[in-house]
């Protein structure tokens, strides 16, 4: 037990938190503008795939990162068009995004590399120190950036007004739909960075369904963090720590907490949080509502 809490554990916590944090901040933007986003998982997976594909085609992980951002942004754009233009049920649209992303990435793995299961190995993005990708500090820096954007800038306040009360926002001249398109697409791009961190930041290849539910954990972090950037930071750190400790607990004999419990912890905490037992902040009141009130 003595050497359990080591630098290695701290590194692991940062590595586990980073993809969740990118994706949670992305989900937060989308939800703050009034568009529920359970398609985060699919957007993240899209980013993870195209990061590797872009790196493989171009030889440069930077191109991979760009392609990840744009492809996940494109997936988010589909979500946005369906939710805003077609007024589709936002949960239905998100479910479709997840199914398509899961199927398409698995399909393309076979098309590009001619094998099922995963990609070839590609070059990784540069690292700061051993095991820490430069994408790690950027994720943490984005927290105050998103906070200041939402609460201290005019466009950010317009985004929040669109999410709180779309009709009122429209009546004072805010183009609610434009705010929502921008927020959902930017959110998707962040989720794509989260995916890229997994595939070319942390590892150097893509495997099928490699996000493994992280998009849903990120969504849980948005909710558990009360739809606030620093709340999301706290939640993703907690959930990331649970994952890191769980991995270490598996190799440490006699660890007192069941690893299954640690894996389930984010879900259990979120379940408790949404029942209102720990009231932090309410969801955006205009989630799923259209600016004309229908």
């Amino acid at each position, binding site marked *: 037990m003595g050497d359990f809490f080591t630098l290695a554990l701290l590194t692991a916590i940062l590595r586990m938190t980073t993809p969740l944090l990118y994706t949670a901040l992305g989900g937060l933007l989308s939800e703050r503008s009034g568009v529920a986003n*359970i398609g985060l998982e699919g957007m993240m997976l899209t980013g993870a795939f195209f990061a590797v594909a872009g790196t493989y085609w171009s030889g440069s992980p930077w191109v991979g990162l760009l392609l990840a951002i744009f492809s996940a942004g494109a997936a988010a754009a589909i979500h946005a068009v369906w939710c805003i233009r077609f007024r589709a049920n936002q949960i239905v649209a998100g*479910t479709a995004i997840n*199914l*398509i992303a899961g*199927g398409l990435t698995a*399909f393309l793995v076979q098309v590009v590399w001619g094998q*099922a299961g995963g990609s070839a190995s590609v070059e990784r993005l540069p690292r700061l120190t051993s095991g820490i990708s430069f994408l790690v500090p950027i994720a943490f820096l984005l927290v105050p950036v998103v906070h200041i954007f939402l609460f201290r800038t005019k466009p950010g306040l317009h985004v929040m007004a669109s999410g709180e009360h779309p009709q009122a926002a429209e009546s004072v001249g805010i183009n609610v739909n434009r705010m929502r398109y921008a927020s959902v697409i930017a959110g998707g791009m962040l989720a794509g960075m989260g995916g890229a961190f997994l595939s070319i930041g942390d590892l150097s290849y893509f495997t099928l369904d490699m996000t493994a539910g992280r998009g849903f954990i990120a969504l849980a972090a948005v909710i558990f963090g009360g739809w606030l950037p620093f709340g999301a930071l706290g939640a993703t750190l907690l959930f990331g720590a649970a994952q890191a400790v769980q991995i270490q607990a598996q190799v440490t004999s006699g660890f007192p907490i069941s690893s299954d419990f640690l894996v389930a912890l984010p879900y*259990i905490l979120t379940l408790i949080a949404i029942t209102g037992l720990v009231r932090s902040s309410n969801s955006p009141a205009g989630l799923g509502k259209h600016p004309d009130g229908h």
Partner: protein
Amino acid sequence: MSSELTQRTRKALTSALASVIAIVLALIVGGIVMRLAGNNAIDAYRALFNGAFEDKRAIGETTVYSAPLILGGLAFAIASRAGMFNIGIEGQLVMGGFASALLGAWDLGLPSALYLPLCLIAAAVAGGIWGLIPGILRAKTGAHEVISTIMLNYIAFRIITYLVQKQSSWLPVDPERQATNRIVDAAKLPRLLDGTRMHAGIIVAIAAAVILWIVLYKTTFGFRVRTVGLSQGAASYGGIKWGATIMIAMAISGALAGLAGAGEALGLNYRHTTVPPGYGYTAIAVGLVGQNNPLGVILSGFLFGILSAGAPNMQSEAGVSKEIISVLQGLIILAIAAVAVFDHLPALRRRAASAAGTKPRTDSAAA
């Protein structure tokens, strides 16, 4: 009375047409994706069709895949009718499958006529409880079911993994296989056709659909469910208890999902493995394409069963990765959602017309 009937028939036909248009659109877009990837879409679809129908074995496979999808689609449909969005079908399904397989592997020494129904009931109860929890949370605390069901899915997976891996000292489970022990013969759903894997799960599914249709459209409970789903306010005004109705609807939804899991465990694999089958998400598509009508769900469940059963053949015969099936499923959902836009069309057209300064055309010719 008769005009109400024709109106309902017309509505059903419009819904069915919307589903057909959506499927055709999705198949076209899916074909374009295959073409872009350098595959021959026509060959792929032909291989898929053959894989689902070419012989007795293929048709058997189609029913094997259709059974859990119909039950899952029904689970989605009953919840939706009550205004609840159940994306926890996967978790309810594995809870049901696990419970039925545990009981079936325990070897209680009962005759099949008792043992099999007991296992099915265990599945319905386990799935039902897992569906009831988000129902209670929504009714009593306002916790949104979309989030709670997602969380409960992952909690269910973990509980089962934990029990299989850590509690093998007293449970009939096999940590090596990551599954329960094999169930005894008396607990098995019988196979229906020699040389195929077709099992009685498909009969359970179709029977459940017919019963659910009767419950929804011929009983006061069904009327309550549909009223609550249309408008919570109107329901309370009419003296219908919203909370109780959604809780019961969610319990039924979970029970149906649990039965889907039981079909897999008792009819197909003869054990429950810890790897979630993924039917829970396809079930959403099945419910939507079936327009949340139990009889429509039978048809859409078979449609998605055909896709799943034909997929391996598409891979081996036409060389197209079977993963494209998930893409098709997602595209069908998107297409359904987009085609539903036409429901809003009269209102949109009116608005566009008034914006253009012309007199709106009246759409109420029926009235």
